[in-house]
């Protein structure tokens, strides 16, 4: 039990490691990562769910961590950009982003990568997007228009979009799952 009714105990698994926190209920998942766990990879861009730079994977799904109170995610399992690589082995998406020069300032990149990882998983599950011609059949490969539509929740103010698209296209073609 915590003393204040406005605070809560919050158990979270982050990148495979368990954490026990005691947080003000107002703490977002993003602030819990950045301010309480010193995991500053997820970025605070707009803090209103509009830019995507705070994207993480919560229970396997890409979400915007700035619009989730940590207390509401308690018990959940989270992967942030710090957990995407396997030690010094980059995640295939990370390698493709490097090869394709898919960033300039890099601020949006952690969110782009986590979003792309979640997005590729959605495609593997056959989820349609608005760019999918045949809703029943599902996506017919990952065309550039599919990538652009599915990644529209991640803004890049440097406008590295063409290289982000080509990096994701290659990661998708070579298989990004681990």
């Amino acid at each position, binding site marked *: 039990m915590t003393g204040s*009714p406005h605070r809560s105990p919050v158990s979270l698994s982050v990148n495979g490691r368990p954490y026990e926190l005691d947080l003000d209920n*107002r703490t977002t998942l993003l602030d819990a990562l950045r301010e309480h766990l010193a995991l500053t990879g997820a970025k605070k861009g707009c803090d209103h769910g509009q830019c995507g730079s705070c994207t993480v994977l919560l229970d396997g799904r890409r979400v915007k961590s700035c*619009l989730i*109170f940590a207390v509401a995610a308690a018990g959940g399992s989270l992967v942030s950009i710090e957990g995407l690589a396997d030690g010094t082995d980059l995640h295939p998406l990370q390698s493709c982003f490097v090869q394709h020069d898919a960033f300039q300032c890099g601020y949006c990149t952690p969110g782009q990568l986590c979003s792309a990882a979640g997005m590729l998983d959605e495609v593997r599950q056959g989820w349609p997007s*608005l760019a999918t011609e045949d809703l*029943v059949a599902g996506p017919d490969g990952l065309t550039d228009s599919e990538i652009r539509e599915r990644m529209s929740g991640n803004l890049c103010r440097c406008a590295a979009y063409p290289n982000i698209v080509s990096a994701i296209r290659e990661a998708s073609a070579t298989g990004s799952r681990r």
Partner: protein
Amino acid sequence: MRTFRYERGTDPGQAVTLVAGEPDAAYLGGGTNLVDLMKLGVARPRLLVDVTRLPLDSVEPLPGGGLRIGATVRNSDLAAHPTVRRDYPVLARALLAGASGQLRNMATVGGNLLQRTRCYYFQDVSRPCNKREPGAGCSALDGQNRDLAILGWSPQCVATHPSDMAVALVALDAVVEVLEPAGAREIPLTEFHRLPGERPDQETTMEPGGLVTAVRIPALPYARRSTYRKARDRASFAFAAGSVAAAIDLDGPLVREVRLGYGAVAHRPWRARLAEEALRGQPATEENFRLAADEELAAARALAHNAFKIPLIRNLTVRTLVELTEGSVEPAAERGR
């Protein structure tokens, strides 16, 4: 942000009781709108009752056809549901036209219906707004109102309902199942959202403290021929400037039945019944589609910056119905050749 207590709902009755016991309580679904409004100071609950773990997360077929969709089903799961994709493409497309992949993974069906307007003035606590504070005045009426209503507005409020999903659901004759402090009740979606009138702060016909538990859509075999068309300022991840949900059933060259919903035009998802009536039994021609839209839009009153919405909705209606009836429609009379 004001401090708040947090409780997790375990069953719908307990969640309703918790909210009924605190005047400043709110249900927390995916949080994609509420958390933002709390950051902006627009929503200031003292208690959040998290409903995302209530056992309301399934999509079930109904005995006579149709679907019962639990209120906590995530938007992305509903859009990916095989039955929705096959039998109600208008609903899948409307869901997929809304927000972004991340937000659809978070947002719930109940929360989508209950999301608040994106009117700038409603979201800016430094500006008067009758929806936030009854009697304060409407800043949008003579302000930046390009995105706001053309139908059903009042001098007290010109806000629009921002949902895409609800526009498809209203065309599909959806019914909202709610649990209120007094008990369970059903409300047709066409009667769920209010027009602003004198009380734009009262957005739904649910009793205070009511919880959406499910949405039912009846069987509608011809909805397999349905779709959603959304016009917006950029290709993706933007609210609608205008949108049309449509389903149509043809009897040879004639319209046997048609359903039309309009989005981003009013305080509620707009069921275009006048246009539907105008088309029933008529030849499915481009000209008739246009006349039907005009029938619905005759009551439209544009604000200073949104007169474009009237031809936009007319054109969206025509293009959507032409797309759905391609191959069955008479070629348009040659013009200007």
